[in-house]
């Protein structure tokens, strides 16, 4: 369980997050949706300790132990939560398999073992990256690089994954494959995946829980069918949509 207590954050004079208190369940795919500027990326940065925690507490529960991001050691936290941000400036002269090996750094600290090699190989197969394994990152397309970065996060083998708009450069096939892969990780390996999405339908189809954010506050938490309604979409995005239903999950259509 991820526990957020009274998280507030300001950048300069601008208050970005207003006193957020939230508990997120484990072993689920949790979609975080909201309009631009709602504070989703800032919340992720605070949770992943990329920004200093200005007020409140964040803790991740692992094996009945509460790991607080302030008091816990950096190395332990690296094995607890992995985050992929929106902007990634990675050294282009690395090969794909070398980048995946960096994902295992919290475990091998620079000296990879055969065990790490094996895990890399498994991930390469699962994410269909074998043909790209020897390529330099600077020679890959945006979408290919995105898939490699996500694979690296999975290599880190943490019980909690935070992904900030990971589907941005992906085509329909790869976006669908990734979401299915994340569902597998959460249901079979008990991992908690929190993912920021802009496509509401993807959130509706693949997420177990949906969290909505607006203007630095959490406005709703629940199952997709309960949270994604005509009223909530109007309130959140100021858009009039039609909500259909497919196999028990909502599908929203923005008609002309």
């Amino acid at each position, binding site marked *: 369980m991820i526990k957020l207590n009274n998280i507030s954050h300001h950048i300069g004079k601008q208050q970005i997050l207003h006193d957020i208190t939230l508990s997120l369940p484990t072993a689920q795919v949790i979609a975080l949706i909201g309009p631009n500027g709602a504070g989703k990326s800032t919340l992720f940065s605070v949770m992943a300790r990329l920004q200093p925690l200005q007020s409140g507490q964040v803790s991740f529960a692992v094996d009945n132990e509460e790991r607080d991001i302030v008091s816990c050691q950096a190395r*332990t936290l690296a094995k607890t939560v992995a985050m992929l941000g929106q902007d990634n400036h990675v050294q282009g002269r690395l090969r794909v398999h070398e980048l995946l090996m960096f994902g295992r750094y919290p475990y091998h600290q620079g000296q990879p073992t055969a065990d790490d090699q094996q895990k890399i190989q498994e991930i390469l197969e699962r994410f269909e990256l074998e043909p790209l394994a020897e390529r330099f990152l600077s020679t890959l397309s945006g979408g290919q690089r995105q898939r490699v970065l996500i694979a690296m996060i999975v290599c880190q083998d943490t019980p909690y994954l935070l992904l900030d708009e990971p589907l941005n450069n992906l085509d329909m096939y790869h976006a669908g494959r990734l979401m299915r892969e994340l569902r597998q990780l959460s249901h079979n390996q008990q991992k908690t995946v929190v993912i920021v999405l802009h496509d509401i339908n993807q959130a509706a189809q693949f997420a177990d829980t949906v969290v909505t954010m607006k203007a630095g506050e959490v406005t709703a938490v629940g199952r997709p069918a309960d949270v994604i309604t005509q009223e909530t979409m109007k309130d959140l995005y100021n858009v009039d949509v039609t909500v259909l239903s497919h196999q028990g999950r909502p599908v929203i259509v923005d008609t002309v």
Partner: protein
Amino acid sequence: MFSSTKLTSTKTGATKTSTAIDNSSSADGQYSAAAQGQLAKLWAWIAAHPKSIAAIILLISMTLFMTLNVNGYWDFALPLRGKKLLALIVVGYAIGVSTLLFQTLTHNPILTPSLLGFDSLYVLLQSLLVFFLGAISFTSLDPIAKFTLEIVLMFGASLLLFKLLFSKSSQDLTRLILVGVIFGVLFRSLSALIARLINPDDFVVVQSASYAQFNTVNPQLLGISLFICVITAIFVWRWRYQCDVLMLGQAQAVNLGINYQRLAFGLLTVIAVLVATATALVGPVTFFGLLVCALTNRIARHMYHTERLILVSLVAMICLVLGQTIFEQVLDMAGVLSVVIELAGGLMFLALIFMSQRRSL
């Protein structure tokens, strides 16, 4: 902004030449084909063992430096040359490693710590000392006291400057470079002002202090510098894997469990100390670091610091030792090594910029 992705790999070069040679072998006949095949294999072997090759070249250079043209005066030559050799090795290590670490930290293969005004600060300090003390007192200053003063001053200035960069986010990198360049211009202008105020005899002393010279090095300072270099080497070697992770950017480094603030501060301290030591020992060496890092990036097999740190030290030492040998023994001091290094480094700098420009078009 320039990025490290602009450097291309030369590893494919070896295999490319071998396929080209295979294609032409049928036209040239079997004898030359065999020789060319051997050449390609030798070339591939050289490309695959840069550290060993560099170490061998360094050993040869050091032997030449110590033994060429001694003409039997071993008692005199060996201690004298030995100290000079040690100074060259210390400076090579210091400049090479500090520039490499700086480029890792700033994600930029075109920056050197010297671009931030270190060298002009050093020259300004020399000018001020000559201005207030006069040339004679200046040259009779206690070398250790002067050395300590220079190191402390440059170290303090760099810490101040680096606080600007790493107290906030990486967007301040551009501002840091700008501030460094402006300060460099300020220091240079002040030095020029002082140069106009002092008399010509004093000016000559300042001039000679403004350029790096590897010909005479104070042995006491050498001892201190060597000690500093060994200490920093221990730290840097322990941090080599964390430096690798820095290649992924700050966000990913934090994600993978690196204490970024602590590591960045540690690296900057080491960089500042090494640059200050090398400059205080031999004088300003602006583009030398850039030249050596660019060469290292070309010949290194991969980007990991375990290899690149060793390689950059070896390459820097080779440049200095071999260069000084050539000037002293072959060319009879017809020129000065530092000038050639500045020329080569400056050309390399321009070449790097133009290469990045072309690729971004």
